[in-house]
């Protein structure tokens, strides 16, 4: 199998198996088994193919396919890794979660078939976003993620979930329409100045021809792109859909939205940031990233502090983390981008763990309200421990992974001279810490409500969380060399369009230097 065929299979498998899941409703007795089997096969094969493809990019460089419409470089690979790993673990968790929904009658085989059909379609559309080299197809794929996942958000059919689904589809469709306008402007500009106009739709070709593009048009286009795809990424103040959709969707879907989908939108913004950096210089995009990043972090932190609904709190935390990633890109330079991308990976792992655990809370307590969820260590001790680890990791406690990436962000910010901004950032992170500390003390301890029985729902709702915990801990202690290579390549791509820029290599020792000074 060649590298190109990896890419094609990576897209075909979840698409084909989503159709199988949709069709399985017509097989009476075997329907449920076939749906779960197709889903498990899909997420497992996507994981394997993602890892193999990442390996191929590491050894042989970027992969192209389908007349260069598909493309995978170091930057895309990071996001592909997120989709593969989180998609598999959350996919596995989904099986345990939906089995509980089947037992309670919330789901029947028809709904189960719709759920897994849409889940895998959603997976396919996100894979298409990260492997797309055609900027129009990139937009089409991101728009399709909304269309695929809107019904997942409203799948319970309750008043609140339908409301959340509507807000999600209308706000994100409008947002992505802004993205389309920006994409059309860039495409039109490239189309008029490139020697082979047919190539104007390909990101890799536009990047090679940035010297001829009109700066005024690119400036305008990038603002449209940032506002549009930033809506989908959950940046403040365009985030209004996010807390509703994340809280009303089934927990595995919330995990996919927060840990994977938001990153897909970020990837598109970063692709266009490369074009902006090459045409206008890095300061234009960086300034916008700093503004949107800072206001997202500040606003989300205070929303989090006021929340009593655990899933809404996690949703606002997504806005905060996406803001942090933006802030890191705003700091810029290889160190800032390296730190931002590492934060994207780390946040995905931690947030999927927390959303899966929030699913276990819902199964047991039938509530997301922090005033009701008490005594987890008595009722569901394993989930309680997972939640505690997730919450501690999310606020940046060592030795977990987010500690490192947050430290790198602050370190690169100080290195770039943003001292006051970093001090503000640290103060805000104290507010975030307080919000999650309250969650830990309030839910883990205290009296278990009388109507809540002891015991976890089933082992499938725990195993993915346990694996995620191991990953979170390992990445907090050690960053694999291959990942550092990919992060360096991605930094080079965002800044110069070239993954092999020697001067873009980040020295981890330099980023860790402030830590060495603190430690005895």
């Amino acid at each position, binding site marked *: 199998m060649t590298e190109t065929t990896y890419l094609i299979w990576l897209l075909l498998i979840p698409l084909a198996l989503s159709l199988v899941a949709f069709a399985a409703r017509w097989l009476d007795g075997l329907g449920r088994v076939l749906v779960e089997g197709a889903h498990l096969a899909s997420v497992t094969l996507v994981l394997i193919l993602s890892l193999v493809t990442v390996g191929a990019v590491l050894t042989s460089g970027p992969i192209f396919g389908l007349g260069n419409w598909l493309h995978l470089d170091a930057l895309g690979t990071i996001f592909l890794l997120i989709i593969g790993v989180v998609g598999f673990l959350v996919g596995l968790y989904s099986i345990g979660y939906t089995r509980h929904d089947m037992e309670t009658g919330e789901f029947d085989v028809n709904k189960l078939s719709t759920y897994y059909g849409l889940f895998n379609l959603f997976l396919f559309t996100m894979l298409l976003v990260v492997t797309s080299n055609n900027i*129009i*197809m990139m*937009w*089409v794929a991101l*728009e*399709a993620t*909304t*269309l695929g996942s*809107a*019904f997942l958000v*409203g799948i319970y*059919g309750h*008043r*609140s979930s*339908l*409301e*959340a*689904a*509507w*807000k999600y*589809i*209308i706000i994100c*469709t*409008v947002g992505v*329409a802004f993205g*389309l*306008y920006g994409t*059309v*402007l860039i*495409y*039109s*500009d490239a*189309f*008029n100045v490139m020697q082979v*106009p*047919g190539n*104007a*739709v390909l990101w890799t070709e536009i990047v090679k021809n940035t010297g001829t593009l*009109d700066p*005024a*048009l690119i400036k*305008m286009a990038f603002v449209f792109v940032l506002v549009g795809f930033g809506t989908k990424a959950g940046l403040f103040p365009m985030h209004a859909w996010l*807390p*509703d959709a994340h*809280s*009303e969707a089934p927990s595995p879907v919330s995990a996919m939205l927060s840990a994977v989908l938001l990153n897909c939108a970020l990837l598109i913004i970063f692709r266009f940031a490369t074009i902006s950096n090459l045409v206008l210089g890095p300061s234009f995009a960086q300034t916008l990233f700093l503004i949107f990043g800072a206001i997202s972090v500040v606003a989300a932190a205070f*929303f989090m502090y*006021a*929340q009593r*609904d655990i899933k*809404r709190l996690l949703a606002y935390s997504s806005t905060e983390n996406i803001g942090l990633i933006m802030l890191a890109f705003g700091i810029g330079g290889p160190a800032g981008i390296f730190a931002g991308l590492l934060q994207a990976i780390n946040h995905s792992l931690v947030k999927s763990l927390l959303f899966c655990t929030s699913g276990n809370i819902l199964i047991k307590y039938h509530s997301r309200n922090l005033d009701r969820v008490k005594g987890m260590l008595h009722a569901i001790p394993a989930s309680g421990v997972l939640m505690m680890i997730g919450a501690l990791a999310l606020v940046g406690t060592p030795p977990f992974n987010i500690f490192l990436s947050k430290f790198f962000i602050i370190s690169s910010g100080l290195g770039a001279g943003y001292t006051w901004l970093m001090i503000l950032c640290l103060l805000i992170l104290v507010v975030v810490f307080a919000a999650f500390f309250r969650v830990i003390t309030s839910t883990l301890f205290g009296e278990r409500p009388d109507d809540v029985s002891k015991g976890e729902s089933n082992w499938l709702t725990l195993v993915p969380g346990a694996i995620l915990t191991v990953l979170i801990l390992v990445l907090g202690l050690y960053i694999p060399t291959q990942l550092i290579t990919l992060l360096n390549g991605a930094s080079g791509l965002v800044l110069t369009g070239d993954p092999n820029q020697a001067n873009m290599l980040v020295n981890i020792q330099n980023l860790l230097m402030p830590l060495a000074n603190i430690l005895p």
Partner: protein
Amino acid sequence: MSNVALVNSLTGLLILTSLLVIEVKRPRWSALMYSLQSLVLVIIFLVLAYTNEAEQLYLWVISAFITKVVLVPWLLYGALTRVGDPEKPRNVIGTTLSFFIAAIALTVSFVVVNQIHLKAAEPFKPALAVSMAHFFFGVLCILTQRNLFKQVLGFCLMENGSHLTLALLAYNAPEIVEIGIATDAVFAVVIMIVLGQQIYKSLGTLDTSDLSTLKG
């Protein structure tokens, strides 16, 4: 009148039809007004195709006619008929204020478009400004209208704005680009209609102010 002047003048009709889509009382009439607007858009494509001898644009004419003049309005009209076409709820802002904001959007668009130095854009700058303003009329429609289906029409207006910009700046773009955008837009409308109908069936309302359970 030259063809360039004709294109620039026809875009004036787009402004008029946009305001009609936003302001007419019955949502079903809005769907018809959208069809009328799309017809104007198709005529603009036709003039551009003839003026620039752009073969690709003739294909756009056909696909835009099928999707925008016929399919989307028919789907919306049918859906509204099924839910009894309730008179639209009161707008978030009054008509006068709505027109005032539209005028500001148009002025800002003219200022912004003036900054662009793309050769292909030079003769069509007024039309280009209208296409951008048109995009913002769609946003205005979504922000000020409380009927779910009127919000869908707002998205359609935004999409028409993007489509016209693409036709003005890259009229020789491969048909596949235009088909990708048009197909996705039709899918978006279909899914929004299905969800809107589901909401009406479950909650008995199309008024977005009734969808206010989730806050904070």
